[in-house]
């Protein structure tokens, strides 16, 4: 933006000042995890890796190793993403293209569910999980999280499928491909940016999910990072805030990595091959 009648530096200045607290917070979050500060001072004065000891030290009795918890979180997020994406691309296609009965009813239902405040369901979900024996298991949380995220995914994917020209499917059928091949080889690649965006979205949403694991799988081997993190300050008599911050950074790292990797996919939207 170097046009002569638009100077960009005032804008940058204003934005810089507004976002300064955020930047300072992040900087301190990171700096505090590798330093110690003398009480009463704002400036850290000693370098230490002490706050990261949770990574290599044996956990205290009654606590679970961070690595188990991390593995749990990955299983939770990845399973939720896989189930959600595969259900969304099939259901979204069906709602967008197939001439099925009760289509309007389904669409209305999905919209309603999407707008529904999920937290109000938590007690009944809790009871159901306990009844079928999935309380305090990872599978239970995965199923519940997937179910609650599904309406959003289906709705988004339906929107993407709606934008794929009919002619591409007609051409595919005419070329001798089965309905499934057409969907798999011709239509799905057109909505690939949508699939990528949805997958990233669901993954991050599951990764940062706190309430569901807290209520439905609160203890022991089914813990995920968010509940681990909260237990860290609730349980201790003398909370170690710097270690809390370190776990926080550790918890945030995969999110940053996911953004860095999928940034391109999210931005790279296909230009259509049809000229109109």
């Amino acid at each position: 933006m170097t046009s002569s009648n638009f100077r960009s530096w005032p804008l940058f200045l204003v934005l810089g000042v507004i976002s300064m607290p955020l930047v300072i917070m992040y900087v301190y979050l990171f700096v505090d995890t590798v330093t110690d500060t003398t009480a009463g001072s704002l400036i850290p004065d000693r370098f230490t890796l002490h706050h990261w000891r949770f990574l290599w030290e044996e956990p205290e009795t009654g606590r679970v190793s961070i690595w188990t918890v991390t593995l749990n979180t990955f299983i939770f997020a990845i399973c939720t993403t896989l189930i959600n994406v595969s259900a969304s691309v099939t259901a979204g296609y069906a709602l967008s293209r197939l001439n099925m009965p009760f289509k309007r009813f389904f669409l209305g239902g999905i919209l309603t569910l999407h707008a529904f405040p999920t937290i109000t369901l938590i007690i009944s979900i809790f009871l159901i999980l306990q009844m079928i024996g999935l309380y305090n298991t990872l599978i239970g949380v995965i199923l519940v999280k997937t179910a609650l995220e599904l309406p959003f995914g289906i709705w988004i994917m339906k929107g993407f499928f709606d934008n794929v020209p009919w002619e591409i499917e007609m051409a595919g059928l005419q070329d001798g491909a089965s309905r499934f091949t057409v969907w798999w080889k011709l239509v799905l690649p057109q909505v690939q940016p949508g699939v990528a965006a949805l997958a990233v979205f669901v993954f991050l949403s599951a990764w940062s999910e706190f309430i569901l694991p807290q209520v439905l799988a609160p203890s022991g081997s089914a813990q995920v990072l968010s509940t681990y993190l909260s237990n860290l300050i609730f349980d201790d008599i003398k909370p170690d805030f710097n270690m809390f911050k370190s776990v926080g950074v550790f918890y945030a790292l995969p999110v940053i990595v996911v953004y860095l990797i999928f940034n391109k996919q999210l931005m790279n939207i296909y230009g259509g091959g049809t000229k109109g």
Partner: protein
Amino acid sequence: MRISIENFTKSFGDTTVIEDMSLEIGDGEMLALLGPSGCGKSTTLFAICGIHRMNAGRLLFGDADVTEVSSQKRNVGVVFQNYALYPHMNVYENIAFPLKVRKESRAEVDRKVQEIADLVHIGELLQRRPVQLSGGQQQRVALARALIRKPDILLLDEPLANLDAKLRLEMRSEIRRIQLATGITAVLVTHDQVEAMSMCDRIAIMDKGRIVQLSTPKDMYENPSSAFVAGFLGNPPIAFLEGTVADGGFRLANSRVTLPVPSGIELPGDGAPIRFGVRPEFFQPGNPLKVSGKVSFVEIQGREELYDVTLENGAVLRSIQAQSAGFRLGEDVSWGIAQDKVLAFGPDGNRL
């Protein structure tokens, strides 16, 4: 492959688009379905390729009844109006897709793609993506993809509608060349009479779901069965004179001028409203049957000049003349109609 459509009826919900239509297309023939938008020509095309189910009637390819056969098994190649290329595949993959679906061997696919790419002159574009191609090139790719399986029938749905004028001219002859080279039976859907006349062996002109006339381009131009057909073919279009039958002649409306009626036309009784259709090339200064009027519009087209002449009763006749005829706007002229070329239409629009 011969195509026979027998008593074809198609409706969407309560709207009947096509009712009881029958049409026969000969082996190796190229037929145009011509008509205004909404006349049912695309519906007919999609019924032939199997995208639309027929509500009633039969469809035969050769002697085989394919009415209930699915699109995939009909062996019909289709070129869509917007080409419908697969955007995520390059040109090679696009053309090879129908063969890949049939699981043909790599070497076989390679050979066939090369062969068809040479036929449609896109041999050097195989690694490009559809977005990197011009409209004409996309069109050629779509043609290649439709032809690679050696289909029995080629269907073209407004293939030239998205091209600019110059390319349209080029692709017109290209499509015809490829059709003749492969000897394939082809159906072209278009609303452009020039395309239909220049590319096809026969034209089926459609209106409101019916075939109004089915004939060769030349015959249809010279012997239209109705005022609708006469008005649809020809550019600049035919001009109509309103009038009535009076004393065995044609009395122009709001005028005392009576024109003699060409021989061989059976007139209805005196006072019946009829119309004369005069094509621009048959209204010339040199012809004997004179009518007078004022030049009300001049269009210089380089090789030809186009004039509108407003007669005393307000009717307008068109004339197309060779270069440098040099008439000016507002000039009073008295030009002649070629009497034996006049087309007369009855009150219902049918030819007399």
